[in-house]
């Protein structure tokens, strides 16, 4: 019984939140890694692109809710998601035409593109705040829980409850679908193969007749889909506030770099590594150990490695360790 309680407590406070957070980071890191692999720069505007995609989706969600259109137990935001992706794609391709293409034709150094993306970030940041404001926005509807803590306690008779929110379940399922689609696209379709060829060796790809502008456009389309999905899932699961997306930039970049920049598989692994480290290192293990250890050994302190204040520091430290000892990341991406 104690063992079961320990497992449930651990699942409830560590595994479930870390898996959903990890999925959101993985989706974000995939976008960063794609841009790095194909367009060859670190896109600082990524967090705010997520905020923009989520914002458009929220506006459509409100419109649908206003018309009485819902998906029953599922959030209406899912219905609005394709529209959000479409508008975000327009924005990204527009930005590319107006801003990035100019620097690409100049063959600008990556560091210049990074600074350019910083400027784009501030503008997107401003657009989002201008349209929807800096405050929290509520747009989740439908059933709130797949399993609620109270029901689980009654059903199992355990002392510990287990809660799985609909948004957490959705996050994981959507991430799996998105990642599967992406890998199928990159490995099986002609366009996907040409994107990988362009990423591996730009000159050879050009010689073999691949149209670079086309590759760039497809990349932005995929990035629009990934960022919007990640942004909406994060907003559904936590809350939508433009500033928090900007804060997400650090863990997302940490995920991409830990996994190896340019490696899609690495981005996913990196997302989960960062999420699990953040959650487990700041978790107070007192309760779980209390169930597992005999009474005499029960810890009196909290058994917490780091106070939760230092959550963001964890991604920093992992980033540093990886850069020092394995600069190419876990999956042998490009070195930074």
């Amino acid at each position: 019984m104690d063992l079961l309680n320990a497992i449930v407590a651990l699942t409830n406070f560590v595994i479930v939140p870390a898996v959903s957070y990890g999925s959101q980071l993985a989706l974000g890191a995939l976008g960063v890694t794609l841009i790095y692999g194909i367009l060859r720069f670190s896109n600082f505007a990524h967090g705010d692109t997520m905020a923009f995609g989520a914002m458009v989706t929220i506006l459509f969600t409100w419109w649908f809710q206003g018309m009485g259109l819902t998906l029953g137990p599922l959030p209406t935001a899912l219905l609005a998601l394709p529209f959000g992706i479409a508008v975000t794609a327009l924005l990204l391709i527009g930005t590319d035409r107006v801003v990035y293409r100019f620097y690409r034709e100049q063959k600008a150094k990556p560091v210049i593109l990074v600074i350019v993306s910083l400027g784009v970030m501030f503008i997107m940041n401003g657009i989002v705040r201008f349209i929807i404001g800096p405050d929290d926005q509520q747009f989740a509807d439908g059933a709130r829980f797949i399993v609620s803590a109270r029901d689980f306690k009654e059903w199992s008779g355990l002392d510990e409850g287990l809660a799985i929110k609909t948004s957490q379940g959705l996050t994981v399922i959507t991430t799996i679908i998105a990642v599967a689609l992406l890998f199928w696209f990159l490995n099986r379709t002609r366009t996907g193969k040409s994107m990988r060829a362009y990423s591996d060796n730009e000159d050879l790809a050009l010689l073999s007749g691949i149209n670079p502008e086309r590759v760039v456009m497809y990349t932005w389309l995929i990035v629009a889909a990934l960022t919007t999905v990640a942004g909406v899932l994060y907003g559904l699961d936590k809350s939508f506030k433009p500033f928090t997306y900007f804060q997400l930039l650090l863990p997302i970049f940490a995920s991409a770099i830990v996994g190896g920049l340019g490696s899609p598989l690495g981005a996913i692994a990196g997302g989960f590594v960062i999420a699990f480290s953040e959650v487990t290192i700041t978790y107070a293990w007192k309760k779980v150990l209390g169930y597992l250890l005999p009474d005499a050994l029960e810890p009196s302190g909290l058994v917490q490695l780091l106070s939760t204040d230092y959550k963001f520091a964890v991604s920093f430290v992992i980033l540093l360790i990886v850069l020092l000892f394995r600069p190419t990341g876990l999956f042998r991406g490009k070195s930074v």
Partner: protein
Amino acid sequence: MKKLLMATAAMALTTSAAYAEDVKLGILIGFTGPIESLTEAMASGAELAMKEVTDSGAFMDGSSVTGVRADTGCIDNGLSTSNAERLIADGVAGIIGGDCSGVTGAILQNVAIPNGMVMISPSATSPGLSTVEDNDLFFRTAPSDAREGQVMAEILMDKGIKSIALTYTNNDYGKGLADAIKTSFEAAGGEVTIMAAHEDGKADYSAEVGALAAAGGDILVVAGYLDQGGLGIIKSALDTGAFDTFGLPGGMIGDSLPENVGPDLNGSFGQIAGSGGEGIEKLTEMAGSAFDATSPYTPESYDAAALFMFAMQAAKSTDPAAYGPKILEVANAPGEKIYPGELAKGLKIIAEGGDIDYVGASAVELIGPGESAGSYREIEVKDGKNETVNFR
């Protein structure tokens, strides 16, 4: 330069002269930021007192009083000091404010003391402000959190709660209040399993709630802000089933909390500075539908404005150096008790040389360095509403 000096000297003469004038009082509270949902009613409360006095015609030979609103952002020291300086440049005779403890200390140190301006805060409650060197320029109609800590410990003990987890918003107010609750509760024989800070304005509080849940406790006491991290902590704790009942100190009491959290909040309880009886009933009646007089710190704001005007009447001057020392006199016994709606009566008694004991809407009784002795409303959330169940 000479002309300017003469002009200012002439201005100074006119302000102290005893004929009808327009007296300005600054209302310097956080119209934006973490307690923005409370400040509208607070400002309306203060302005109601000013209107009442102006309409009476009994104030300093028929002078009128108007409020000048300015924003502190609640947690923005730069904004609040620059706005305080603006108010002084505008020629206010006194400042009602600040609201949150951190900015109140900043305004006091950087603007009020250098300019010799009197401040009466309706809502700054940090115990640190009791001992600050204020040159007798700082008063508050809100009690210190040290008192709130005692009240909360009493309520917890009465409910038979033996252990609590405690989280606070990471600033002067949160830390001071959390320390006070911990000290009082432990002195009464309770156990505090964990005392952890949380940051405002984050999207995700699951890590914080995980640590709090691991430490355990009968209930979770959240010394935070209802529009900010406090709300996030409660939502996350309910989602994960970590805690069902919450202890809600002053910063968490407001109508928006039960609305945002929903029925799961029913049964949670707390307290907020405020009093029952004649004073608050009269103020509620006077406010009518214009604003909610029972909203937190609104009676205190009305009282802060009233104290300024009584003290000026007693000193026959709007000069802070002259009326400042009179504030304790008009607030405390002996004298005729004055309630909301009776400001004209109080002004007349003072004008005739009598003495008043201002009770006001929040049972004003200033103790020690000029802060409210502190009566509290005990709140319980019932059917999605904050209900006052007791007074302490």
